[in-house]
């Protein structure tokens, strides 16, 4: 027997209260884990999509804070950018979130410049690619095909235009697997945004260095007022939705921490009130105040540790469940990291210890004689 086993025994002796406390902590931690992994997943999914395409820089409107920045006429800019040193290729891209049919959840529709490098990283599983820039056809990501229950030869309707499904592809990026892919010209026609793009993707040649990319950034900044050349990471991090998701996860962490600490605090106060006499006995038997404090803090830390472990497991399951819901499927790839889980566990134990300190001090300060008289 040691102090830890004694603390554990005390918790097991009050199973209902211990379980409720652990559940409350677990709920808070689960919310933190689920929301944070989703927020990170949202950010990572977009970055992964940009990285998979081999894009080095993205030209967008300076003030645009959206995952799909506001469209602009891209032809003139494209020509200018293509002449910068070490720029191998510039490709326009127009994205929209559209519903396909009445029952379908909103789905990403990407319009990519026909014949551009953007298409190169995709693996065609079935069918073929569009034959020209104006062919009224679509290729579907594997996940999109599954969600829409469409296969080669079927038709989909986008904003009043009917397109034939001619291919199914696979990408290393979840966002693309869950998308409908059409040519840029077809996308401009469907969305009634002639000649417009959300972004221009720049691919540097193989000899390009960081300095060359910086030069392009500077040139865009100097010569194209209102536009900026940024990396995919920078584009994602300035995304308002990502910012809101992260802010929500931070607020959740704050609320979960406060609630968790208060729950532990309340539980330990009740426990000490019930065990006043027992604490008096321990004092009479020669236990120093420090040992009594340590025992109480061990109990609160154990509650928080268990709540943290369960919360992390539930949070991961919740995030997996969320990313598979009809609305989220193919859009978010939840990110689970061991360092994050360990940090959350550390936070949980910290709030447990924090919530247990005052009750522990209270217990340690009890007068032995008064504690023994307590009924």
């Amino acid at each position, binding site marked *: 027997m*040691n102090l830890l086993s*004694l603390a554990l025994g005390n918790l097991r002796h009050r199973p209902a209260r211990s379980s409720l406390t652990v559940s409350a902590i677990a709920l808070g931690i689960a919310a933190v884990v689920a929301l944070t992994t989703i927020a990170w997943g949202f950010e990572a999914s977009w970055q992964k999509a940009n990285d998979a395409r081999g894009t080095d820089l993205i030209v967008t409107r300076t003030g645009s804070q959206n995952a799909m920045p506001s469209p602009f006429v891209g032809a003139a800019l494209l020509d200018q950018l293509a002449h910068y040193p070490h720029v191998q290729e510039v490709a326009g891209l127009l994205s929209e979130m559209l519903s396909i049919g009445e029952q379908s959840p909103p789905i990403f529709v990407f319009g990519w410049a026909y014949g551009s490098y953007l298409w190169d990283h995709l693996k065609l599983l079935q069918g073929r690619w569009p034959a020209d820039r104006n062919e009224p056809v679509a290729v579907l990501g594997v996940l999109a095909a599954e969600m829409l229950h469409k296969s080669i030869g079927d038709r989909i309707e986008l904003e009043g235009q009917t397109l034939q499904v001619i291919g199914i592809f696979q990408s290393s990026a979840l966002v693309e697997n869950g998308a409908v892919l059409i040519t840029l010209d077809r996308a401009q026609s469907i969305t009634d945004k002639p000649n417009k793009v959300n972004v221009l993707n720049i691919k540097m040649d193989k000899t390009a260095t960081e300095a060359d990319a910086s030069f392009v950034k500077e040139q865009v900044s100097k010569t194209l007022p209102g536009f900026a050349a940024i990396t995919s990471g920078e584009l994602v991090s300035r995304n308002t939705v990502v910012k809101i998701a992260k802010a929500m996860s931070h607020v959740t962490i704050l609320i979960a921490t406060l609630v968790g600490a208060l729950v532990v605090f309340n539980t330990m106060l009740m426990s000490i009130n019930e065990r006043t006499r027992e604490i008096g006995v321990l004092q*009479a038997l020669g236990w120093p105040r420090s040992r009594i404090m340590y025992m109480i803090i061990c109990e609160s830390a154990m509650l928080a540790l268990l709540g943290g472990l369960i919360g992390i497991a539930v949070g991961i399951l919740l995030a997996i469940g969320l990313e598979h819901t009809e609305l989220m499927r193919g859009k978010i790839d939840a990110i689970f990291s061991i360092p994050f889980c360990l940090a959350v566990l550390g936070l949980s134990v910290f709030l447990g210890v924090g919530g247990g300190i005052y009750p522990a001090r209270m217990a340690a300060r009890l007068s032995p004689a008064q504690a*023994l008289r307590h009924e």
Partner: protein
Amino acid sequence: MKLVPQSAQPSPDGATPILDIRNVSLHFDEGRAKAVNGVDLRIAEGEFVAIDGPSGSGKSSLLNLIGALDVPTCGEIYFRGQPYSGIADMALFRSRHIGFVFQTFNLIPTLSALENVMIPVLGHSWSAARQRSKAASLLSGMGLADRLHCFPATLSGGERQRVAIARSMINDPGLILADEPTGSLDSVNAQQVLELLIGSREERQITLVMVTHDRSISARADRVIHMHDGRNESLGEGG
């Protein structure tokens, strides 16, 4: 903790008493309630002293003062010549020198009999094996060798009190304070517990101070102290 005699008066036989209580009072409610009121008492090493008296006469309060669970309002208590007021760590003092036996046993319900006996030495420098073997040996001496791993809820009242007596002895204390140890037991168990307590005290030469209402127990004591309105009256030898 080494106790260095300071200013306690020696007994008439020249030996320093284990307890020298001088004009000790314990007042509550700003002096309006006097639980203990000017008690003077000396108890020799190895003596068995019974404290009796009506309810509210201050017996348990005096025992709490002797056990350093309460601080006297005035007066001083000396343990082997060392004044309580000069002891910096009272918890350590209790853990080294005093064993407690309570009327309601006060065992920890989440621990087995063996673990309950080990509680006072938990966190000491003793090895786990030493704690365990000493506790098992004490419980065997109490006739509970086959009940080591039973929890208090599964033990009879007499068995629980025997566990509590074993617990009070694990530190080899010089002084055991028993507050009506048979008060919650039937007569058969009360007799068994009393015999074990007195037998252990004789075997280990422990000083025993026992609060009791039971005249038959007082009769077994070396000396009976009668408490009345917070004051003590020595009634001389018990048995």
